[in-house]
């Protein structure tokens, strides 16, 4: 394959093989952090947006993108980070949500429920990824990484991560 014959779709397919280092079942395409790809001859610009401001995975993702696209023959790959519009869990693909659930992490609820200032609000009803019960409760709204909250199922008693709405 020469660079001339490579189209955007192929590049997206290659990018779809790069996984998030902290949630390795999700590709960066599933997460919705690749915003655009601009091609100009053998030069390529990939525009990405961080999930969370302090997400330490972004530096590694940038390097991985460059390495991955170098294997396609692109010598000049520029990865640009944009902050606006701010990333939201609404950009996560349905495929990504399915993969998360299988991995044991509850995917973000379709409707954003707690991204507001209301105090002492009831915790979101989150479905247990293990036994599918909605009979769960929140242990902490901050979890093992910035993007997750910690829940426990009251039926199967398993603790689990919830990819919180953002």
């Amino acid at each position, binding site marked *: 394959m020469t660079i001339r014959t490579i189209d955007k779709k192929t590049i997206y397919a290659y990018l779809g093989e790069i996984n998030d280092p902290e949630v390795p079942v999700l590709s960066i395409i599933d997460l919705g952090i690749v915003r655009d790809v601009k091609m100009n001859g053998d030069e390529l610009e990939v525009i990405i947006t*961080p999930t*969370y401001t302090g997400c330490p995975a972004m530096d590694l993702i940038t390097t991985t993108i460059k390495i991955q696209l170098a294997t396609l023959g692109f010598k000049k790959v520029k990865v640009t980070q944009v902050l*606006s519009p701010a990333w939201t869990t609404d950009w996560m693909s349905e495929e990504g949500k399915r993969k998360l659930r299988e991995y044991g992490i509850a995917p973000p609820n379709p409707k954003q429920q707690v991204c507001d200032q209301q105090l002492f609000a009831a915790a979101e009803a989150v479905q247990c990824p293990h036994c599918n019960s909605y009979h769960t409760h929140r242990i902490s709204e901050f979890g093992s990484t910035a993007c997750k909250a*910690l829940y426990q199922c009251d039926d199967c008693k398993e603790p689990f991560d919830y990819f919180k709405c953002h």
Partner: protein
Amino acid sequence: MNDSLIQYTLHLADNSLILGQRNGEWCGHGPVLEQDIAITNISLDLIGQARNFYQYAARLINENATKVSPTGGDLERATEDTLAYLRKEREFKNLLLVEQPNGDWGQSILRQFFFSQFQYLLFEQLQNSKDEQIAAIAEKSLKEITYHLRWSSEWVIRLGDGTEESHKRMVKAVDELWRYTGEMFEGASYELRAASDGVGANLSTLEASWVDKVKDIFNEASLPIPEKVFMQTGGKEGRHTEHLGYILTELQYMQRAYPNSEW
């Protein structure tokens, strides 16, 4: 391009870095595991904000720099790391509030609440800044600040309106920290310039909303709002309390002892 935009960006960066560093001191020492994780998550968000602002400041500084160094050697280029690790105490422009010691859990919570409430209102305005990058960083950070504000507000209420002991400690924390809140609304020269350029926020309109919000939470927390307290200022201009030097000693140690070392 003007110098006040650089100063203003550094001020925003320094606030986030220093509070991020302070909160990080709780790592492994939180009262319960979940809250230890919460406050260090907030640290991570703050350090992320600081990185965004430092990267932008470095870009502005490098664009603005003279092409040839006075000594004829290679020009040192500013980076997010040189700005965080190699500036001296007097060059830091953070609020005095964020450098205050952690004290007990109540004092750290109250410091976070005062700052998050301020940042929330500030970044709401900065989302519409004429400077696109400042606006983008503010827009991105605001979602996370909403979490910080909700979390710290709930804790202020829980502790203020909790047991006799927790109430007593919160009253003491208010007594300790209130004197550093006035500085948030007293514009340094670069802030006034940034505001008049449409880049920075209008601090006088922020003050009234901040006081209203704090009154609401204090009311629920049965905490009294102090009256007529002499306000300490100077941090924004580089005049700090004795605590900042110690923070920087720890934060900058590796780069000072082993210049240019990398992970």
